[in-house]
């Protein structure tokens, strides 16, 4: 990891808020949401207080892996508009401090989760931190365009950890939630990278549009969308989701496929002489379809998990209840 001179210069004293930023609070909120869904869907005999502490441990573990990522990726973060204001590349926090925070939070979160619930959940959390920090950040991210495909497993595991925390087991339905997030990740991130590929190219990160080109990326987005959307229906037939879930998954899946098809037919990610330096999220006209898919992918995943959560909390009818 090379470090630019700007990285070692402290422009202003580090505030505690800068350390909070190292934990990527927005990513953490998604982790909390999916982990709660796993914990609630498991319907295990978990004490509510211990359940809340388990979710806190999973969130802190996710924050720890984010801190490792911020430490290791400071050099490439400094080259990208989206990431150059992060605490380490901006000089607010030293890289070594980010590393120390990651180590301490990893140990505390895993140990406390083990003591609070069970060691299967703690082991899965430790594996998730290792997978994100070492396998994805240190190895895959800079070496292969499949980085976010394989690395997506780290982001997909929180519902399994939540399920294991509640029951001490990780059955098929828990892994189904994991598979949904895993298959969602490539179309989600590749849609984003279609209109931010110049940043990745500048930083030397081999994202799919940089290495395989925009046309190939659009085709792969469509292929993954064709695999992802039917998978979202499956929980309705394994006892995990009910009728409401089936309706949301089917209708949303249809919209997802239409948007993926539009991306496939568009020229998103191609350099056709347009320039737009106004801001990160000001998108070239040709990439609007990619932006739409990216935005809807977030909404769709949120709706799927929120519906599962609501069905289990409100005890809504399952598929086949009216037969």
């Amino acid at each position, binding site marked *: 990891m090379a*470090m630019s001179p700007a990285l*070692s210069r402290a422009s*202003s004293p580090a505030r505690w808020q800068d350390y909070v930023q190292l934990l990527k609070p927005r990513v953490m909120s998604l982790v909390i949401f999916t982990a709660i869904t796993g914990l609630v869907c498991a319907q295990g005999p978990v004490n509510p*207080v*211990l359940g809340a502490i388990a979710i806190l441990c999973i969130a802190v573990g996710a924050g720890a892996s984010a801190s490792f990522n911020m430490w290791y990726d400071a050099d490439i973060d400094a080259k990208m508009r989206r990431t150059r204001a992060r605490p380490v590349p901006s000089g607010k926090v030293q890289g*070594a401090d980010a590393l120390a925070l990651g180590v301490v939070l990893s140990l*505390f979160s895993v140990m*406390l989760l083990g003591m*609070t619930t069970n060691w299967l959940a703690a082991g899965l959390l430790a594996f998730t931190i290792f997978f994100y920090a070492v396998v994805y950040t240190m190895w895959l991210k800079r070496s292969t365009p499949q980085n976010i495909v394989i690395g997506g497993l780290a982001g997909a595991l929180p519902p399994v950890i939540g399920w294991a925390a509640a029951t001490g087991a990780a059955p098929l339905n828990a892994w189904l939630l994991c598979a949904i997030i895993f298959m969602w990740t490539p179309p989600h991130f590749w849609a984003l990278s279609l209109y931010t590929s110049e940043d990745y190219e500048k930083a030397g990160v081999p994202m799919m549009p940089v290495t395989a080109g925009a046309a190939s990326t659009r085709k792969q987005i469509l292929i993954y969308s064709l695999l992802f959307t039917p998978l979202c229906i499956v929980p309705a037939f394994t006892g995990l989701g009910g009728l409401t879930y089936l309706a949301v998954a089917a209708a949303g899946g249809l919209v997802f496929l239409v948007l993926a098809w539009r991306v496939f037919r568009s020229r998103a990610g191609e350099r056709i002489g347009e320039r737009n330096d106004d801001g990160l999220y000001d998108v070239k006209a040709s990439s609007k379809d990619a932006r739409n898919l990216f935005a809807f992918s977030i909404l769709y995943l949120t709706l799927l998990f929120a519906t599962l959560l609501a069905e289990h909390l409100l005890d809504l009818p399952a598929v086949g209840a009216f037969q």
Partner: protein
Amino acid sequence: MSAPLQDRRSQDPQAEAKARRGRNIALALGLVLFVVLVFVVTVVRLGASVADRPL
């Protein structure tokens, strides 16, 4: 990876002192939270069984 110590200090001693105070308070609150969590976990997990142990 670590920078020289003088690079880590702010040019403004007052701002540095204020930031350090904020970090210290946050660290203290974090440690207190951890102690409270361990205590709560212990109490909840033991529950009523704490009275069942042989004296």
